[in-house]
């Protein structure tokens, strides 16, 4: 192959058709409250880990819905399980259980 000094880069578009939501659907079945997230960001604003790292519960959920599983799981690992997000969530989402489920489902 000729080295041109530049190459084709992958489009940053997420092609939703190509995303396998098998694991997310499983997660959603176990935690139907996940569906009610409205991305208000309370979880991230108050997150102990989120103040020092890029941990964001809100983003984890979105990433999983958009097929960015690896990135999401990387973030989950930063959670300190303090429970503050669950305490505040205005939709009453059981964030703690969801984080534990993600660890279980996506590490399978």
């Amino acid at each position, binding site marked *: 192959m000729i080295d041109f000094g530049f190459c084709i880069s992958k489009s940053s*578009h997420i092609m*939703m058709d190509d995303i396998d939501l098998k694991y997310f659907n499983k997660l959603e079945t176990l935690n139907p409250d996940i*569906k009610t997230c409205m991305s208000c960001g309370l979880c991230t604003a108050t997150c102990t880990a989120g103040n020092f790292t890029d941990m964001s519960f809100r983003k984890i959920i979105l990433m999983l819905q958009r097929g960015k599983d690896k990135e999401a799981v990387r973030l989950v690992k930063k959670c300190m399980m303090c429970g503050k997000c669950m305490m505040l969530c205005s939709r009453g989402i059981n964030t703690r259980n969801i984080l534990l489920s993600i660890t279980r489902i996506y590490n399978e």
Partner: protein
Amino acid sequence: MNEHRILVIGGGPAGMETAYQLKNLGLNPVIIERSDKLGGNLSRWDRLFPTSEPAEALLEKLMEQTKDIEKKLNAKITSIEKENNIFHLKLSNGINYKADAIVLCTGFDLFKAEKKQEYGYGIYNNVITNAELEKYFKTHNDERINEPKRIGFVHCVGSRDVKVNNTYCSKVCCATALKQACEIKEEFPEADVYCFYMDLRMFGKGYEDIYLKAQKDFDIKCVRGRVCEVSENIEGKLVIKAEDTLLGTPMKMTLDLLVLMCGMEKSKSSNEIQKMLNISNNEDGFIETRDLFSGLNLTKEKGVFVAGACTSPKTLPETLAEARSAAMEVFNYLGFQDVRN
């Protein structure tokens, strides 16, 4: 009191309710409607948010209320003149009316979806409008809606958009979109349904409940971001592009059906009547009211009143409430109460 004749121009919900209340107040309203039936945009709808009550039920109620009220259908107004606070209105068929007051209830037109060229309405087969989806719910007859597996809704089509000269919010589209999303999911439970919104403006009684229900019970996926482009692939499926603004990532997907939530514009038919009455538009192109607080039913012309979506986008409850208050304003104007005019 019956000598006081009031012309209610427009036979949609606002006009019907105004006329009914005027009649209750002992006045003599006439509904002047340009089409061949009453009901306006309401008659195009199948179910109403937030409760999914059949539009037919409300329409029947309004019909019942107005059954003894004089109406002129297929009426084309050729001139209106005002002389000594009396309005003289002429119709094209030679009928003339003398009236003490006029209530404009000329309503709204849905934004013409083809103006947003990038959405390909009228070009790509499976792009439809909110009104067409309501028609489908009524008739179940639309060959474009054929077991869709993935459906998208685009909010704010023709609203909040300087490119079509409509910078205002049409107010009803968010609730309508989520209502329709749930309804189509009911018809096609296997389908994935996406709503592309910028802000979900679920402000009214029961609206937030639709949102929750849509998320929880119907698995409607709300994506924050405006669809920028629609095209068609070789299989005839739609391909849309949008940004997931909450994640900051552009996304693409194929869809079997795309529903455009066309917003409201003041009805074109009211332009001529406004000219005859010397009534101007506000900055959004709707009829200008005297102010935005206590004068919502008044115009700058004495004796000319307004109600409903001809002055700004409105929900049905708001329209009906405005109709009632317009009737009261007319009643006061005619000297039965302390006059504000």
